[in-house]
């Protein structure tokens, strides 16, 4: 029983973390494109990262 609860919670946390991360990225204006929000790759977009 306990292993199921612990691992289940971990899976739920992983899922929620991914969703929160995606929402945060969206709010920051970073697109979830294949360049992964990496300005080094993205020659035009993702300008918010440039001043790192």
């Amino acid at each position: 029983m306990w292993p199921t609860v612990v691992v289940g919670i971990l899976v739920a946390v992983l899922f929620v973390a991914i969703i929160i991360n995606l929402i945060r990225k969206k709010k920051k204006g970073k697109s979830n494109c294949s360049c992964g929000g990496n300005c080094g790759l993205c020659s035009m977009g993702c300008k918010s990262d440039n001043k790192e």
Partner: protein
Amino acid sequence: MSIKIALVGNPNSGKTTLFNALTGMNQYVGNWPGVTVEKKEGRLKKNEDVVLVDLPGIYSLSPYTLEEVVARNFLVEERPDVILNIVDGTNLERNLYLTTQLIELGIPVVIAINMMDIVEKNGDKIDIQELSKRIGCKIVVISALKGTGVNEAADIAVEVANSKEPAPVYNYSGVVEHAIAHIEEAAVHHMPEEQQRWYAVKIFERDKNVLEELNLAKEKLEHIEKDILLVENKLDDDAEAIIINERYLYIENILKGCFNKKSLGRLTMSDKIDRIVTNRYLALPIFIVIMFLVYFISIGSIGDWTVGFMNDTLFGEWIIPATETFFTNIGCQGWLVSLISEGIVSGFGAVLGFVPQLMILFLLLSILEDCGYMSRVAFILDRMFRKFGLSGKSFIPMLVATGCGVPGIMASRTIEQDRDRKITIMTTGFIPCGAKTPIIGLVAGALFGGSALVATSAYLLGVTAVVVSGIMLKKTKLFAGDPAPFVMELPQYHAPIYTNILRTTWERGWGFIKRAGSVIVAAGIIIWMLNHLSIDNGIKFITEETGGKSILEILGNAVSVIFRPLGFGDNFEPAVATILGLVAKEEVVGVFGTLSGGNAEMGFNLALNGSRLAGMSFMVFNLLCAPCFAAMGAIRREMNNWKWSAGAIAYMCVFAYAVSLMIYQFGSWFSGNGNLIGTIFASVVAIFMLYMLFRKDKNKIGER
């Protein structure tokens, strides 16, 4: 106090390479003009107080395209402390044309002559000291690629910025100088002294932006116009041409004696290669053979082997069974083991399995880009595109889109004409991006024995879809008009720089892995849940005993009706994969991985009942239909109009549906399994498309 250095130069002169070398950043470098369309900032590695601004490449300060506006506005409005002007030594005269304008801005200028190794290789000689004396600016020789002289250039720029001394302006011929002096006196005398000359020259050129900015009184303008007309009459030319001519005369004078061009008239190695590669008849076959080889290596041979190993052995035999054993042994219940192994690991693994294939593809494309071949492709395709009313400029966004559609769509900003830009935005998504490559790999692997022809045909289909759309759309009133002229300087070929190639390959691949680790994992969990929950008599978990239809199956079946005429609507999985592909195109493969317990190819094969025709139709639809949400967002931003954005996305979907319908219905008919109603519909679509393609272009005649 911080110092701001602006990196300014012609397109493809090496600004971004220098920027990366000085800041330690990893901005994308491409061996074709127009890679940078927005300014980028970074701090000098050696001195955090120094800010470097990488500006888009420009030929002049007369803004014709958006990136030229970006560069000019920055220089004029923000006035950096110093301009580090990167000059391509192999094209000295043309690069110095921009230098003459930068000097007029009244901002201190340091010249960094790049690509001196090629200059020397060509046997040309530049007397740097003499040139520096004649122009009145400090000059430093650099090789941005090899990193030589770059720190010295930055040090000199900082030194010059601190001195705050602008370069001495040069004089035009008597009449022109006289008129400019009049304008300075009449219109810009109230401005800081160092800025007066640039504004006066721009007023003389009748630069619209400057005239708007200054908003001069009508009488003053009339007075100035008299001066300009006087010069124009005397020199028998228009004001802008007079200034261009004067600048080139000045450059010719200063280069006399300090620039010895031995290679004049002699063919360089690049010219010799171009004679074959851009040959009128050979260019297109060579391009097709090269793309076939790229896909043969990346998807057909080595790539197919790596995918086989990743999917069948690494995930199929090792990771998934090990995961199941581990979580069962620690006491997790069956449903949780299934969620982890099928929902998370299988979906993630199915997508991750394509990473080596993608890495090889990205590596080969990076080599082609870096050595200079891809810019030739733009030139080759311009000849073809132009016949169909499109500009070769449309190819640059397509080139960028092979990595990711989002920057590809954004690259359409380099196209000045609104209608051409809109067509490019609408069609760039047809080119298979990195995220779509696994779909091609899946179809090729599951139904065509990993044949490279599938991938090559997918790429060529993308280019054909662009051309066909271009022809059809250009004949409508909305997009009518001649294509914008396409002027692009072909860069010299050079051996690929391994740091550039590895950086680009790694970053594209890493972006793909990160996405698989986030969107794909989350989507895998949702798919697994929807596939294991039933709503028969309330929500309940499906087990072998209970049976029943899952929510996913019900939803999938509802949607799959739409895809039945396309051949992949008999089962719910392809419909679910297509819809979830809108979230991220990688998810198309992820769905089959999750639903088949890790073996995406087997799942795909079963879902399409082993039909190659249906598989091809599925691939074509998913490659051509609406892109992922991120790319749709980019379309909305670039179109800046929701109606146009919705129209663009709707067009892509309808076009994809029409092409897939024709492929499946005609294919079925030829193979003897044709459906009469389906064939009639496909014929109507084909006739309509042929009519749109070959009808008379009324708008063109009207324009003439």
